């Protein structure tokens, strides 16, 4: 999405920018498995919340996670804005039928989930995330497809950047309106050429994989064990998620209720 928007706006896409903030956060040092399980547990719990005070509490927890992650707020805000239209559509549709309160609760609930997932994605290198999934016994076919898709997106991005530079060098002005027919024609030709070129590169990449003995599974070299700090991170998130669910099910009374 960011890549396509960038293309229309004439911005450059750089493959390594995808993971550029991962190491700015202390989160990247944690084992990907702990992060995946912890954050997904939190997302499931947040999605289950219906009581307004608990929806708000889960949003606050997600914001707290984002604030403590040390990932630049501007980066998270940009990524959140990319997802905002979807959140807005979901909230509006619920709000139209269920009233303002339910619409706002939907917005807060989806925001809590999106923010938590953005923290996970931004605070973990993409490859580590996929490797973590594999170590969590997600089938090799799924993780390999994810990795190859990721690699293909990088190739598409690189080809797009080259095409944009070439286009600019020949006087094409970017930032045109989508109603500009000539601009639209050039953009569609560019998209076509990018796909053709990326397909050629994808073939070479496949040959590159085969030439290095690849069969069907991206196996990491060093398997690092889960350390105490990873367990602690996981325990905090699981405890928070479990508490939310217990409050929601009224197994435990919400302490701030009047």
């Amino acid at each position, binding site marked *: 999405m960011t890549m396509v928007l960038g293309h229309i706006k004439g911005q450059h896409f750089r*493959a*390594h920018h995808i*993971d550029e903030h991962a190491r700015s956060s202390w989160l990247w040092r944690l084992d990907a498995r702990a992060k995946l399980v912890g954050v997904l547990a939190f997302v499931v719990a947040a999605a289950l919340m219906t009581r307004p005070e608990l929806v708000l509490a889960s949003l606050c927890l997600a914001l707290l996670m984002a604030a403590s992650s040390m990932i630049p707020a501007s980066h998270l805000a940009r990524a959140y804005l990319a997802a905002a239209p979807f959140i807005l559509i979901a909230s509006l549709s619920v709000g139209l039928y269920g009233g303002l309160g339910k619409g706002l609760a939907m917005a807060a609930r989806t925001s809590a989930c999106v923010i938590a997932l953005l923290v996970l994605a931004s605070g973990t*290198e993409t*490859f*580590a995330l996929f490797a973590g999934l594999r170590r969590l016994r997600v089938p090799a076919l799924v993780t390999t497809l994810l990795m190859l898709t990721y*690699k293909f997106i990088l190739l598409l991005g*690189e080809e797009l950047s080259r095409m944009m530079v070439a286009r600019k060098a020949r006087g094409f002005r970017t930032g045109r309106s989508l109603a500009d027919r000539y601009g639209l024609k050039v953009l569609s030709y560019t998209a076509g050429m990018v796909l053709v070129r990326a397909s050629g*590169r994808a073939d*070479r*990449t496949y*040959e*590159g*994989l*085969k*030439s*290095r*003995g*690849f*069969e069907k599974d*991206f*196996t*990491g*070299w*060093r398997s690092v064990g889960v350390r105490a700090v990873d367990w602690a991170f996981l325990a905090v998130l699981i405890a928070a998620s479990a508490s939310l669910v217990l409050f929601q099910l009224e197994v435990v009374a919400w302490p701030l209720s009047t």
Partner: protein
Amino acid sequence: MAALDMRDLGFRYDDGTEAIKGLTLSVAQGERVAVVGPNGAGKSTLLHLIAGFRMPFSGDLTVMGKRLDKNSADGLRRHMGLLFQDPDDQIFMPTVEEDAAFGPVNLGLEDIPGRVARALRSTGTEHLAKRPPQRLSFGMRKRVAIAGILAMDPGILLLDEPTSGLDPRSRSQLIALLKGMRQTMVIATHDLEAAAELADRAVVLNVRPVAEGTIRQIVSDRAVLEGAGLEMPTLPKLLGRLEEMGYPVESLPVTMEQALAEISRMVEREAERRSG
């Protein structure tokens, strides 16, 4: 037993374009053969045929005595390391050391840390072990790609335009690195100077094989160069001009060392002529 043996090899693309025709070539174990020719001569296609990514349309190809076909390609590829023209096509992992380990892990080889350490040491990329490859320069990424191949310890190296896209310093460093290796090599290049430094023998390919011999013999034959659409490198061109000016040259040099030896002899002859 030859490392590679090709008999009357031919390959045609799906659209009917002939890429290689009637190539017969044998490469002994430990030998380094350069395949030189202009763009579109079939050099890269030949490497892809040898690596078993494409199957020959006609003729026979054996690798380490075993016939290459669709069934044997994956197994035979274990003996070969293919260096792509663009290193980004063969670098996959998030750090340099993990990328070097990628092949050995896939092949289930033993002593992976030792293999990785040796490969990084021999390519001078030890200090980059923890770095993400995509943030390195093109020359360094080429070294990382070579490290990835060396870690698999293949007997045959297939190098596709190894010096293309490199600045002069990186080019010299890469040539020195490759010169120090002991593997059988097939080097597809249009860089005649690099071929002269790296290869024992060269085959001029322009879809069909045009000539075979040392690079020195090939650059001395203008008809061969013109027939294959190759440009004479700067050093033999310079010495050729000196010969035209009346300074005899024993044989046209291609490398700097050969040129220095030739010029020294020329100076000695001139000194003798003047004193006598």
